[in-house]
């Protein structure tokens, strides 16, 4: 490889350009494809789960006979457990993480802070390759003799020990998560360093777009808490492979006994920050997009950034609210409840700032804006329902019901999915140099929005009625029989949502090749990535820009006639 002026030349061969690329833009796209692939896989699993819950004992249409020939196309009970386990694992670690953090983190961070690449391009490339290894490990677990992991995405012992899930599926799951942890921490260290060291001259922390704030805080949480999960799954792997008894107790432990609850502690020390790891990038993106499309400066941008930081800090102190039913001391449950409730203060500030941003704005209802408004709506619902689960007295009733499933799908699935789509529609012109079709995007939005609200609102209703999660056929219980119709409604909504993704897939692939050529700045936005051509040239910036103002400068009266935004590189009198 040749170096000119301290850079390496643009790669020319297929391998160096698309596979072993150091370029953060290519690595971002690799993560995007990887994430979209797993989003499809996880989505199909969701449909299989939904079908089983609405039509227990009936063959899954079309694919059923192919997938489950031994049961005439009906999803068998053990497969059902694998499906909800892998659906959760895939969506969290292999779809949301790569798309929001891997793809948009890699793509946006250097472009939006005015850098030519990440701090450590080699580590960046390795981070993707290791993520691929992890994905292969997870998918391989499906083809082991006893099938994949089936202990739920939380993998609590003793469900996840050799007693609960014999066979190598669960072991491969553990290894897959461990390997993914290595990939994510590599990425996280890289992101944090890049943001600290390579901001363009003049760009203070509060001049960064809020997207970067979200991604940066996410990276910090990732770097700090993923290793704890790594330690946990390592201990679990030793229990499964080398005959130790860290998490085994009672009849499960042939010699001595460990502590199954210990795994829950280790898991949730990581697991609670993880939910903020997933949502923070979406919050950042939405905070920016609302301002961009309301043509107004972001209301209280500094307060938004600081409340995201506060939430990041508080998120490390509340993990116990996942474990209210584990015979925790009441003193502890009260403490965790109070700490959990304090999170609603910065969340409310954040939410109020969103509303303040769109209030009296001249809103443009382009597709990224529609999806951002969707996030505001679903996150509001998801956040409010979280209060019932953070309160000990109500959580004891709602624990492990579909109410929980509905709640975390509203916050993690709905908000993050819509946020991810907003980001995709918004940055697609920059990434691929072509515009996506607006009409199809709007159809996609409404089908998704109606579908997901049907699904997740329905889940809350059945959960409140007492339907537990993870049951193969809940309707064997008399008190749940009456819930079959509403479960059918949820499944039809899920199908609608599934069908709603087809316009997106078509739009994405078609626009990639045949879309209208994108101008340099299709949305009239002032952040740094829009000051360079679409798609950006090799090494992004001919000259490192000098930043003169914040990212949301709209409607300055000193602007020339017919222009309502200001580039971050511009200075007005």
């Amino acid at each position: 490889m040749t170096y000119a002026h301290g850079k390496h030349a643009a790669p020319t061969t297929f391998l160096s350009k698309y596979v072993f690329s150091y370029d953060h833009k290519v690595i971002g796209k690799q993560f995007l494809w990887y994430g979209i692939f797993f989003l499809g896989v996880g989505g199909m699993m969701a449909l299989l789960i939904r079908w089983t819950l609405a039509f227990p004992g009936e063959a899954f249409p079309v694919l059923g006979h192919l997938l489950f020939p031994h049961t005439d196309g009906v999803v068998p009970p053990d497969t059902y457990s694998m499906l909800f386990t892998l659906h959760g694992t895939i969506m969290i670690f292999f779809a949301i993480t790569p798309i929001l953090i891997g793809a948009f983190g890699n793509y946006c961070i250097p472009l939006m802070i005015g850098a030519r690449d990440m701090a450590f391009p080699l580590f960046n490339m390795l981070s993707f390759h290791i993520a691929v290894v992890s994905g292969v490990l997870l998918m391989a677990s499906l083809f082991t003799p006893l099938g994949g992991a089936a202990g739920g995405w939380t993998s609590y012992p003793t469900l996840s020990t050799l007693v609960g899930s014999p066979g190598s599926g669960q072991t491969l799951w553990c290894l897959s998560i461990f390997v993914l942890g290595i990939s994510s921490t590599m990425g996280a260290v890289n992101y944090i360093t890049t943001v600290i060291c390579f901001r363009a001259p003049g760009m203070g922390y509060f001049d960064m777009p809020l997207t970067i704030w979200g991604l940066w805080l996410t990276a910090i949480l990732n770097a700090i808490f993923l290793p704890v999960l790594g330690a946990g799954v390592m201990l679990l792997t030793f229990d499964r492979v080398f005959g130790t008894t860290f998490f085994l107790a009672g009849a499960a432990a042939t010699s001595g006994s460990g502590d199954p609850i210990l795994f829950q502690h280790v898991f949730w020390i990581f697991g609670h920050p993880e939910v903020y790891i997933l949502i923070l990038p979406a919050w950042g993106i939405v905070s920016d997009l609302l301002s961009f499309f309301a043509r107004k400066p972001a209301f209280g941008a500094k307060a938004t950034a600081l409340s995201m930081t506060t939430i990041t800090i508080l998120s490390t102190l509340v993990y116990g609210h996942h474990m209210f039913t584990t015979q925790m001391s009441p003193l502890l449950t009260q403490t965790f409840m109070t700490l959990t409730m304090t999170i609603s203060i910065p969340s409310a500030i954040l939410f109020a700032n969103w509303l303040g941003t769109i209030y009296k704005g001249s809103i443009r209802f382009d597709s990224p804006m529609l999806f951002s408004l969707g996030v505001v709506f679903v996150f509001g619902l998801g956040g409010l329902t979280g209060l019932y689960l953070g309160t000990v007295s109500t959580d004891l009733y709602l624990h492990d019901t579909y109410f929980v499933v509905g709640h975390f799908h509203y916050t993690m699935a709905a908000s993050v999915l819509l946020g991810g789509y907003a980001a995709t529609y918004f940055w697609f012109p920059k990434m691929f140099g072509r515009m996506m079709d607006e009409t199809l995007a709007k159809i996609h939005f409404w089908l998704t929005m109606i579908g997901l609200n049907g699904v997740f609102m329905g889940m809350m209703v059945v959960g409140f009625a007492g339907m537990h999660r993870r049951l193969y056929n809940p309707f064997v219980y008399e008190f749940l029989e009456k819930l079959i119709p509403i479960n059918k409604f949820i499944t039809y909504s899920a199908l609608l949502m599934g069908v709603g993704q087809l316009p997106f897939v078509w739009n994405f692939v078609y626009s990639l090749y045949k879309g209208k050529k994108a101008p340099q700045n299709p949305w009239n936005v002032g952040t740094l990535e829009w000051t360079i051509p679409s798609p950006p040239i090799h090494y992004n910036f001919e000259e490192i820009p000098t930043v003169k103002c914040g990212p949301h400068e709209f409607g300055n009266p000193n602007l020339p006639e017919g222009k309502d935004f200001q580039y971050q590189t511009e200075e007005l009198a």
Partner: protein
Amino acid sequence: MASGYKLLNPNHVDPQFGKASPGKIAMWIFLVTDAMSFSGFLIAYAVLRSSKTWPTPADHLGIALSGFATFLLICSSVSMVLAIDACRLKRREKMLQWLLVTIIGGAIFLCIQVYEYQHLVHLGLSLQEFINGQNLFGSTFYMVTGFHGLHVLTGVIYLICEYKNAYEGKYDNGNYGNLEVLGLFWHFVDLVWILVFTFIYLL
């Protein structure tokens, strides 16, 4: 790789942020990450130990040899500092000599650990069981010290790579930045061992 980022990365460094190189900042962040992985294991150890009847470690593990190993590791931290100082003063021979001492210190530590493992297995303390009591005593012992041993091994390999760089004359100009980043990692491994030694052997 450690010297690679300058070539691979044409970015402008924010002059406002002190003088720390990206490599050094990244190493500090990584050390926080790594400290958290140790705390994962140590939390597990603390919870298990506090809820079970636990043997007195000193009775079964033998403090003399591990105490000597601890002393050795601390000394190798000192020699690491001396190597960096020699580099700063552009004393090539001294730098190489102290680096070599550090490598040997780490290697002997590893040898002692291997010997100790063999010895303990022979006495009936294995990963799965402990013939004189609580099985988890052995499991946690091997997990925590083994995880630390992997770090020492990584550190020794890292040291050897940098020794090669130093031998080839890359640091003869007194630019000790990369050695300092290496030093951070090595001191961290040392510091963690002091905690591990305290919690696992002494308390």
